[in-house]
């Protein structure tokens, strides 16, 4: 009897777990996809962080034998690739998914199905890339995968790079298209473009940049794919190809990519600084102008990554000037943030600390950026630790600080619980000081001549002190991240419940609804009367937004497993191609057949999705009224 009851309990528990897993796999709700992106991106952020620590252990002392040669190259390549494509990008999409529909007063995104597909493609692409550790070694050609090194000399690791990035790149492109259409078409009544919160603006521009920048990456990766797996000659000089073309294609994608990363961070900083200064954002329209201008200019500067290739003085001069002009709109933004804080009632919450810490840090990265934009000087800095310091100041000090500000700021809206502020401030100080300790000395290491991507240096080259400080700083940042993880666990278990207007001084629409947001977001679509719509209503003495429609049934999309299955079938195809690759001769037939099966399954699923009629479902008025009452 007891055994029977026990087995029943176990089975119901198991069913419970499977049911839970099933809801996450099949979800098309943008708020749940945001959480998936946050944890997917967070997982890869931790993996990339561990790789960074391994690098810093190797470089802490001269002549170290901890990670040598190809192993070091693999860890370094995977650190860069993981952090850019698998940590920063999805964390930005996490913020966009969590916040954008709420900020523009929409009930959902434009294409929930595509949104889910985008997430699963990114996640499985990341898994494909990381399985390389277990199948003959990770890619070792640097995150830039320059040819002909990457296509002809590095073996099977690069196949994982090519196909993993192809998958996750497709996911990113889909996410961007979804957000473009969402922001353009689904704004609430009265939410004109010039009333949108700045995070929506920067996300709009970022999505447009993704739309134009990722196709070159896709094409370039296909070229490498054909070179590597079918022995084509796009980059093979001996057979008439040209390796420089890859550099061009990669940076035509790669330079917009860094703005794709940093613009949403600018948006987050603008929201956080304005909210916690209790002031309207200073110079809103100039911020919008600067954002659009940065987006436009980002396509005209790619050659500054290639000054030392020898493209000639005219090309170098033109692209140097174009690069320096980007400092102007960026400067506009910096001053606008400072003026927003000026005279404001500044609240030093963790989110705001990260935002304020971001400003000087990003300015330092920007200054070294202008230094690098001068071609004669760049000939000295190129491929040294000076460059490493520069891009970590802008990407870690810019993007990651922005993302952490966003995580602390919107965590209550995403999960309904506040993160602990004391632990948050410990995280901030460890992370901030650790960051500067890690990367500030690297400027000098670079100026003293330490080349990037080398796995060791000799004693007596005066690199010891800088590298030791740098490694200590890296562990400081690791402590900060561990405290953040503890914070998350502790507050999830017994944190303070968040109110709708979690910080009490929220300005934008997302704070006008319950935390976490109900499935349908807004019971009634709000009527927007100006910038900082919710603040305006509060100042007029209202507790809630003025509704733009009567209460009614809300139409929702049904959950579906097809996006997940589609991503799985493309993963199968990727593995097929990876194992078809044969350095010596013709590709293996077995692998090609597997790939064909994967692609066939994908086409089949596309057919099923087009034929199957899915009208979604309605949440009824009574149900909505009940949920709204409970939330109060």
């Amino acid at each position, binding site marked *: 009897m007891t055994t029977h009851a026990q087995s029943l309990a176990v089975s119901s528990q198991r069913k419970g777990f499977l049911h839970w897993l099933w809801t996450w796999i099949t979800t098309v709700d943008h708020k749940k996809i945001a959480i998936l992106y946050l944890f997917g991106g967070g997982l890869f952020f931790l993996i990339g962080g561990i790789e960074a620590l391994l690098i810093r252990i190797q470089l802490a002392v001269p002549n170290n034998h901890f990670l040598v040669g190809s192993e070091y190259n693999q860890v370094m390549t995977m650190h860069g690739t993981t952090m850019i494509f698998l940590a920063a990008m999805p964390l930005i999409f996490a913020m966009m998914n969590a916040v954008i529909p709420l900020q523009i007063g929409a009930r959902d995104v434009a294409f929930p199905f595509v949104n889910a597909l985008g997430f699963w493609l990114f996640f499985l692409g990341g898994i494909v890339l990381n399985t390389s550790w277990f199948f003959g070694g990770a890619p070792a050609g640097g995150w830039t995968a320059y040819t002909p090194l990457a296509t002809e000399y590095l073996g099977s690791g690069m196949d994982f790079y090519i196909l993993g990035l192809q998958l996750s790149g497709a996911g990113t492109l889909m996410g961007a298209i979804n957000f473009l259409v969402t922001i*353009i078409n689904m704004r609430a009544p009265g939410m004109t473009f010039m009333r949108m919160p700045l995070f929506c603006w920067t996300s709009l521009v970022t999505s*447009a940049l993704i*739309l*134009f920048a990722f196709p070159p990456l896709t094409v370039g990766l296909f070229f490498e794919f054909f070179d590597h797996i079918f022995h084509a000659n796009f980059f093979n000089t001996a057979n008439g190809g040209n390796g420089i073309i890859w550099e*061009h294609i990669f940076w035509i994608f790669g330079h917009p990519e860094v703005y794709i990363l940093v613009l949403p961070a600018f948006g987050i900083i603008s929201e956080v600084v304005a909210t916690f200064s209790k002031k309207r954002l200073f110079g809103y329209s100039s911020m919008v102008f600067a954002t659009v201008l940065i987006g436009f200019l980002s*396509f005209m500067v790619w*050659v500054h990554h290639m000054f030392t290739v020898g*493209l*000639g003085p005219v*090309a170098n001069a033109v692209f140097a000037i174009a690069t320096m002009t980007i400092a102007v709109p960026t400067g506009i933004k910096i001053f606008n943030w400072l003026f927003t804080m000026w005279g404001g009632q500044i609240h030093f919450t963790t989110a705001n600390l990260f935002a304020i810490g971001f400003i000087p840090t990003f300015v330092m990265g920007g200054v070294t950026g202008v230094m690098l934009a001068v071609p004669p000087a760049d000939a000295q800095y190129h491929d040294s630790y000076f460059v490493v310091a520069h891009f970590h100041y802008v990407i870690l000090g810019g993007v990651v600080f922005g993302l952490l500000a966003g995580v602390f700021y919107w965590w209550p809206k995403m999960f309904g619980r506040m993160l602990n502020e004391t632990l948050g401030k410990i995280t901030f100080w460890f992370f901030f000081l650790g960051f500067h300790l890690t990367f500030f000395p690297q400027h000098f290491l670079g100026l003293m001549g330490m080349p990037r991507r080398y796995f060791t240096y000799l004693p007596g080259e005066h690199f010891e002190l800088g590298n030791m400080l740098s490694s200590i700083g890296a562990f400081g940042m690791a402590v900060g991240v561990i405290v953040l993880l503890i914070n998350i666990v502790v507050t999830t278990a017994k944190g303070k419940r968040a109110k709708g207007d979690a910080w009490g001084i929220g300005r934008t629409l997302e704070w006008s609804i319950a935390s976490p947001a109900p499935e349908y977001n807004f019971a009634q679509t709000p009527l927007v009367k100006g910038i900082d719509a919710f603040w305006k209503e509060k100042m007029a003495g209202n507790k809630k937004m003025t509704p733009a429609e009567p209460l009614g049934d809300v139409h929702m999309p049904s959950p579906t497993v097809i996006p997940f299955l589609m991503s799985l079938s493309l993963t199968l195809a990727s593995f097929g191609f990876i194992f078809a690759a044969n350095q010596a001769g013709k590709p293996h037939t077995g692998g090609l057949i597997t790939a064909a099966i994967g692609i066939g399954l994908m086409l089949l699923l596309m057919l099923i999705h087009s034929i199957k009629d899915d009208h979604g479902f309605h949440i009824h008025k009574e149900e909505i009224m009940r949920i709204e009452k409970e939330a109060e």
Partner: protein
Amino acid sequence: MALTSKDQVAEYVAKQRRRQELLHYLVTFASMIVFTVLAFIAVALRKDINDYLIAFFIVTMAVVQVAFQLYYFMHMKEKDHGFPALFIYGGALVVFVTVLAFVTMIWI
């Protein structure tokens, strides 16, 4: 037919508009075929005409055909197509600048 009621007027206008549209389709379709034939003729006369002139001629007609395709067959001439137009021209501008950089000052 006398146009007495409002409905009849509306129906008449809609019908005329449809006819007008059909005419547009036919004219653009015919001119696109003519352009294609001209392109082949230009190549056939390669011995007598300068190669660059032929290339310029063909590319110009290609651009016109793309415009026809977008505006007449894909409805960009109609209302509420501002954003598609913005993104198409934005993308075209980015590509143009990139290609311009390659052909004028960069050694690939």
